[in-house]
């Protein structure tokens, strides 16, 4: 005879309400951790997908994601000449806001070195990679465009030739992929106010180059993506490039490390702290519920003692209820998370490892709550049946 289950069945509505309440706390925890995982995976996306072994960036800088980086336009040709380098591609990424059919859209404009890089590495779900060095774009569905749309960027109209899914930058803006030369032209287009401001500043700022091929002074090229020969020694290539003095070299792992440990560490600490607060609230709530359930059963517990029940029977009843609440809430919380979070604007990544950890934390919380109830139950005396 399982007393815990019988009691739960008798008070099914209360049990369900309790479980639902705790489940929402668990859903919130899953959401917090998942949001962090989502931001990390979005942030690492380009680094992982673009397929570069090394990133050559502005000397003394850790760009282009952690800080700004501008390199001279011909650096790719120099890099290409280094022994062991299979290919070098120019790369640029800028946030861009533009108007489309009266809607203000945002995108992370990424310039790839067409024709070496036509954007094959993006997760295309419709259309095709770039087939021309000009006026074609691949957009992520998060931007809000569809295949065949024409958008005005800078001075030109661009046609969306491909659509991707899940290609976003760290802040959740969808990628908009164009050729490097197009990207530079778009990025360097100034508004008339900017031009006026520059003039009134005494013309010290250089004028925007027209056409967009030669970019010497205020180059917007952020990095050169290096693919190495399979037999090449990455360290030798790195040393060679560093010796030039005007460039810094980062490996894929270093780029990822910079993002996680420099740019995102505050977010990580914040989310961990938030999750800790949620777990604390959960501890208090479950403990309170178990304590209440125990208090409510003091009479029954006294009766069990009067009838000669062992403590294990009483402890089992309390602990089982506590863990049943935790387990049911974890299950429901997970179901809710899977139902709710896909509709959130940003990616919430539900990681099995995180769920396992959360499950462990919930088990600890339930164990603690049981102890609270059990310590109260052990104080009950058989005589209390009579009171």
């Amino acid at each position, binding site marked *: *005879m399982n*007393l815990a289950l*019988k*009691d739960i*069945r*008798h*008070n099914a509505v209360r049990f369900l309400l309790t479980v639902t309440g705790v489940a929402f706390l668990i859903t919130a925890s899953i959401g917090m951790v998942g949001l962090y995982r989502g931001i990390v995976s979005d942030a690492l996306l380009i680094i992982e997908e673009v397929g570069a072994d090394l990133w050559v960036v502005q000397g003394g800088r850790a760009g282009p994601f952690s800080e700004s980086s501008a390199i001279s336009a011909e650096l790719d040709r120099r890099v290409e000449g280094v022994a062991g380098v299979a290919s070098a591609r120019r790369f640029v990424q800028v946030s861009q806001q533009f108007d489309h059919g009266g809607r203000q859209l945002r995108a992370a404009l990424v310039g790839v070195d067409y024709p070496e890089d036509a954007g094959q590495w993006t997760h295309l779900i419709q259309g095709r990679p770039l087939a021309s060095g000009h006026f074609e774009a691949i957009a992520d569905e998060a931007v809000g465009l569809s295949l065949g749309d024409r958008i005005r960027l800078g001075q030109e109209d661009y046609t969306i030739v491909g659509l991707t899914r899940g290609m976003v930058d760290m802040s959740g803006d969808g990628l908009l992929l164009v050729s490097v030369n197009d990207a530079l032209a778009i990025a360097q287009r100034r508004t008339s106010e900017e031009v006026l401001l520059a003039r009134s500043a005494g013309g010290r700022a250089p004028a925007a180059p027209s056409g967009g091929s030669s970019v010497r002074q205020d180059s917007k090229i952020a990095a050169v993506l290096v693919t190495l020969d399979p037999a090449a020694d990455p360290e030798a290539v790195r040393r060679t490039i560093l010796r030039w003095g005007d460039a810094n070299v980062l490996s894929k792992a270093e780029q990822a490390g910079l993002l996680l440990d420099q740019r995102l560490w505050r977010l990580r600490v914040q989310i961990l702290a938030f999750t800790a607060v949620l777990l604390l609230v959960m501890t208090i709530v479950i403990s309170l519920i178990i304590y209440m359930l125990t208090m409510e059963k003091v*009479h*029954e517990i006294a*009766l*069990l*003692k*009067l*009838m*000669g*029940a*062992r403590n294990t*029977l009483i402890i089992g009843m309390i602990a089982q209820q506590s863990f049943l609440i935790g387990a049911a809430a974890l299950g429901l919380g997970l179901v809710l998370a899977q139902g709710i979070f896909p509709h959130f604007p940003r990616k919430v990544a539900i990681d099995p490892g995180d769920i396992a950890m959360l499950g462990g934390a919930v088990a600890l919380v339930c164990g603690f709550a049981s102890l609270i109830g059990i310590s109260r139950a052990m104080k009950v005396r*058989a*005589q209390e*049946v*009579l009171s």
Partner: protein
Amino acid sequence: MIAAPILTLRDAARHYPSGDTLVRALDGVSFNIYPGELVGILGPSGSGKSTLLLIAGLLEPPSAGEVHIRGKCVSHPGMDLDQMRHFRRNNIGFVFQKANLIPFLTAVENVALALHIDDVPARAARSYAAHLLASLDLAHRVDSIPSRLSGGEQQRVAVARALATDPGLILADEPTAALDSVRGRQVIGLFRQIADERKAGVLVVTHDPRTLDLFDRTIEMNDGRIVG
């Protein structure tokens, strides 16, 4: 009676400190209860009847004196009675004024619980519990939860529960107080039957003079002492 007593109280006393004075709830009580005997305890309110049952039921140790069950000293001053749970389970059945059934268990589960606690396998416990309930005219109520039972039915379930482990001693504190006279007499009749058929010693605190004809004898109490 030729048999050895099932319960013996020897100079049992129970004192409660109350401010500067001492309340002598029980003040040196001695008696024997024999197997098959139905004994009533009478006395005005506050005379120590419930206290007597607590001491005899090993729920509180006496301040002085001893309690013997089946000739063995099982309770004396300063004893930790929590250790006696196992002994209580097999030797003493309790019935109180309130039925004290567990609200989330059905009638048959409430009775089977006593057997479950005594490590009887679930199926055997259930069938014996159902058999006990049937013998108390509750066959049609086995699967009802307590809140669906009348007061008399609840009290009979409580009696069945007290009988489940076939204890040699049954202690009942005003089991009929909440029942009408017909139902009350039924319950005392039940105790009469238990004493006769199971040869249990049954000690019943009662206020109801109309059932006294069913008892073998009565113990009168006043101010914590036996007065007759």
